[in-house]
C-alpha cells in the first residue's frame, strides 16, 4: 500500500481545492476524481483524504453539507468558500513557483 506521504506534503490540499472549484463533491467522488484525472498515477490511502477534508473545513476554506447523492443515500458534500478560492490561488501560485524551480534545476543541471 502506498503511504500517504507518497503524495508530496501539502499537495493533497491543493488537489482537493482545485477539484472542488467546479462543483461541490463528496469524499468518494473526490477520491475517484483525483485517481481518474491523474491517470491512476496519484494514489494514496483513501482514508487520509478525510483528515485533510476536516482540516480544510475547520480552516474555513471549504464548507460541508449533507445532501442526497447519486449513490442512493445522503452524503457529505464539500464546497469551496470564497476564502478557499483565494487560498487556492495562493497555493497554485506557490506550486507554480516550486514546480518551475524544480523544472529549471532539472533542465540546467
Amino acid at each position, binding site marked *: *500500500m502506498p503511504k500517504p506521504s507518497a503524495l508530496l506534503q501539502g499537495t493533497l490540499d491543493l488537489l482537493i481545492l482545485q477539484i472542488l472549484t467546479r462543483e461541490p463533491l463528496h469524499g*468518494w467522488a473526490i477520491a475517484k476524481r483525483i485517481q481518474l484525472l491523474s491517470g491512476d498515477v496519484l494514489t494514496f490511502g*483513501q482514508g487520509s483524504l478525510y483528515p485533510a477534508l*476536516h*482540516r480544510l473545513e*475547520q480552516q*474555513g476554506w471549504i464548507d460541508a453539507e449533507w445532501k442526497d447523492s447519486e449513490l442512493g443515500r445522503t452524503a457529505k458534500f464539500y464546497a469551496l468558500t470564497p476564502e478557499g478560492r483565494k487560498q487556492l490561488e495562493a497555493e497554485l501560485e506557490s506550486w507554480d513557483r516550486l514546480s518551475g524551480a524544480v523544472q529549471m534545476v532539472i533542465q540546467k543541471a
Partner: protein
Amino acid sequence: MRLTRILKKRVRSLLHWSRQETELHDELALHFEQLVREHREAGLSECDARLAAKREFGNVPLVQEEARQWWGWTWLEDAWKDLGYGARLLWKSPGFTIAAVLSLGLGVGANTAVYGLMKQVMFDALPVRDPQNLVHISRSSLEGSSRTSFSLPFTRDLQAAEGIPFDGFLATSGYGQVSLVTEAGAESVNLDLVSGNFFELLGVRPALGRLFNAEDDRTVGGSPVAVLSYAYWNRRFGRDPSVLNRTVELDGRAFTIIGVSAAGFDGLNRMRTPDVQIPITMASYPSTQILGRGDWWLDVFGRVKPGVAIARAGDSLLPLLLRNYEIAGRVPKTEYQRRVRESERMFAIPAISGSEAPRSWQLALNTLLGMAVVVLLLACVNIANLLLSRASAREREQSVRAAIGASRGRLIRQQLTESLLLASLGGIAGVAMAYALSQMLVSIMVPDRAHSPLRAAPDFWLLAFNFVVAAAAGIVFGLAPAIRASRPGLLAGLKGTLAAGIGRMAMRKLLISAQIAVSVVLLMAAGLFARTLASFHSLDAGFRTDRLLEFGLDPGGYGPDQVYGFYQQVIERIATVPGVEASAVSRQRLMGGGHWGSGISVEGYTVHEGEKEPLRDAVSAGYFSAVGTPLIAGREFDTTDRTGSPKVAIVNEAFARYYFGGQNPVGKLIGEGGQQPNIPIVGMVRDARSASLREAPVPYWWIPYQHMQRNRFNALTLYARTAGDPEQIISSIREAVASVDRHVAMFSVRTLEGQLNDNLRVERALATLTLFFAGLAALLAAVGLFGVLAYSVARREREIGIRIALGATSYQAGWTVLREITIYVAGGLAAGLAIAWQAARFVESFLFGVQAKDATSLAFSCGAMFLIALLAAFLPARRAATVPPAVAFRAE
C-alpha cells in the same frame, strides 16, 4: 470574516460533538462501502472485497482520530481525560486530598479575607464620578504634618480661585452622633456636614428627591434641609418614599428631608458612614465660628483637572494658604513663627477610595496580609512535598507511560491538570474559609457595624482574586513535582528501584527546616502581640474601668444659659436611679481618643513657643470620685463650683512635675494661654491615661464645666458608676434622661470596659489572627515533618529490622530515624530564632509594654515549635522502634 466562520465551526463542533462523531462515521462508512462494492463488481468475493477495501482505505480508527484532531478540541478531550484520571486518584487517597485541600483552602482563604478587607479600606474606588481625580487636601508645617482641617472662608477661597489645576473643591465634616426626633421618638444618628456642591462635584445622584446645591450653604442657618443616606433610609424607613418633605428634629432643630443619596454611596470616610447629611452652614456652632477664618474644622476634597499630576497639584494651593494668613492678619511676629510659616506646605492626597485609612489599620492589614502570604507559601510547600512523595510512589506509572510513548510535555500536562484540580478544590475551600475569616475580621475590627461600609461578603473581583491565587498556587506547587516526575530514569522506574528518591529526601528535609523557621517567626510575632494585649489589660489606667457606664448627650436646642441646668438635672436624676452610685459629666470622653489642648500660662513658669501644651478638660462636681481617679492633694470640684463661682482648677501629678518641679501645686495660679494666670489650683489627682491606653499620662488640667467658655460645646459625656452590671440599668438611665427632656437621645452608650475593648480592636485582631496563622504554620510544618519521617521509616524498615535483629534497642532504632531529621529541625529553629530576632523591629509600632526583642516570646515560640516537632516525630519514631526483626528476613 474567515475568523468568525472558524470560530462558529469550532463552537459547533464542541456543541454537537456526538453528532459530528456519527457524521464522520457515516461519511467513512459510505466511502468504505463504495470501495467494497467496486471490488465486488470487479469479481471478488464478499470477504476478499472487504479485505481489499481495507487495504486501500487504511486504518479506520486512525483516520477518525486524525480527522477529529482538526475539530480543534482534542486538547479539551485530553484535559477531560486527565481531569477524570486526576479526580479518581484524589478520590482514592482521601487522606492526601483532605490534607492538601484543607491546607490550601486555609492559605487561600486567609489571603482572600485579609485582602478583601484591605481592598475595601484602601483600594476600592468610591462610587462617584471619576474617583481617580479626587484628592484630599492636607497641609503640614514643622508644627505637625498631615493636618486636614481648614476653615470655611479658606474653602471658599479655594472654590473661587482661578488658574489652579482643580475643577472644584468640596468641604465636609463629621459632626458625630446627634438625636433625630420623629413622631416615633428619639434615636441617635451619625450626622455629617457637607458643602452645597458636595454631591454635585462628586457626581452622586439622588435616589429620591433632590440633593444639595450651591444655594444650600450660602447663609448660616439659612437652609434647614437634610439628605438621608440610602443605607439609613433603607434601614430606618424601609425605603418609604413618603419621608420626602417630612420635617424631623435633628440636634434640637427642625430639618426638612429633601432627598436620599444614591445607593452604595457611603460618604468619603471608609471608617464611618453618615446616616444624615446637612449643609455645613447648618452646623449648630455659633456663626462666628462657622465663618471664622481662624476656625479649622472642615475636611476639604478637590477634583484635579484631568491629566494633571496629583503629586504636584498641592503646590499650587500654597499661595492661597499664605494669603489666607495675611487676610486673617496672622503675621509672624517671632523668629519661631517665621520658621513655622516658611515650612508650610499644601498636599493633594489621592482619595480614590476616600480619606486615607488610619495608619494603625494600614499597618495591621499589611502585617496580616504578609502573614497570610507566608501561610499560603507554607501550604504550597507542604502540598509540593506531598506531591513529591506521591511522585516517588508513581514513578513506575510514569515510566510505563513514557515507555509506551507519552511525550514529556504530555506527562507534565497531566500532572499539572491534577494539581490545578487540587487547586480548584482548594479555591472552593478558600471561599468558605475567606467568608468565615472575614466575618471574624470585620467583627473584631469594626466596632459599629451599622455605621461601617465594610462588608464581610466577598464581591465578584474578590472571588476572582481567590481563584487566581489558588490557581497560581496550584501551578507553583504542581510544576516542580511535575517536571521532576516527567524525567524518570526509564529503567530505574520500571525496575522499581528507589535510588532516585535519595536526593529528593534532602530537598524535602530542607523544606521542613524552612517551614520550621517561618513558624518560629510567626509564633514569635503571636507571642509579642499576645503580650501586648495582656499588658494593655493589666495596665492601670488611673481610673476604675469596671462598672462604669458612659454615654453622650447633645441637647442641641438649648441655649448657652439653659444647657448647664439641663446637665445638672440629668446628673441629679441619674444619681437617684437605683443601682447608680455616682454620676458626673465631662467634655472629653474617657478613652474616646480625643484631645483638647489650648495654651497655658503658669505662675512662675515661662511657656516657650512651640512647647507642648498640656491637655485639659471640663468636668462636673464629683467627677474624679465617680470615675475613680484618686485625689492626691487638695479637694475635687463640688457643688460650690458652679456658674459664676470663683474660678478653680485641678491638675494631675504630671502637670505638677512639669511646671512646678514636683512641688505641691495647690494654691498656685494658672491660666489660659496668653492670659494672666488667675485660676488657683485647688487639687491634684493621680496620673491617668484618659484619651487612650497607649498614651502615657501627660500634664493635664481641669476646670468645672460651668466655667467653660460659653456657647461652644453642648455635647458632653455622662458617667454613671453602678453597683452591679451597668448593662442592666441602661434602660432605667434612659428613662431618667427622657424625664428631663425626651427629645435628647443618648448616643454611644458604652461601658468603659466595652470602650476599652473597642480601642483594642486592632491589637486584638492582630493577636488573634497572628496566633491563628502561626498555629496554622506550625501545624503545616508538623504535617510536613511527619510525612518525611513516616516515608523514611517505610523506606528503611528492612534496615531497621536488621539493626534490631543484631541487638539494637528500641531507643537506638527510634533514634536512627530521628537522627537524620534532628539537624534539620535544629537548623530550622536556629534560623527562625535569628530571623525573628531581626524582624521583630518591623512590628515594633504595634507593641506596648513589651520589647520587640522579647526573650519570653522568643522562648515561647521556640519551645512551642520544638514541642510540636517532637509530637510530629513521635509516631514515626515509635513505629521504627517497634519494627519486628522478622521484617529483615522477609524477601522483598
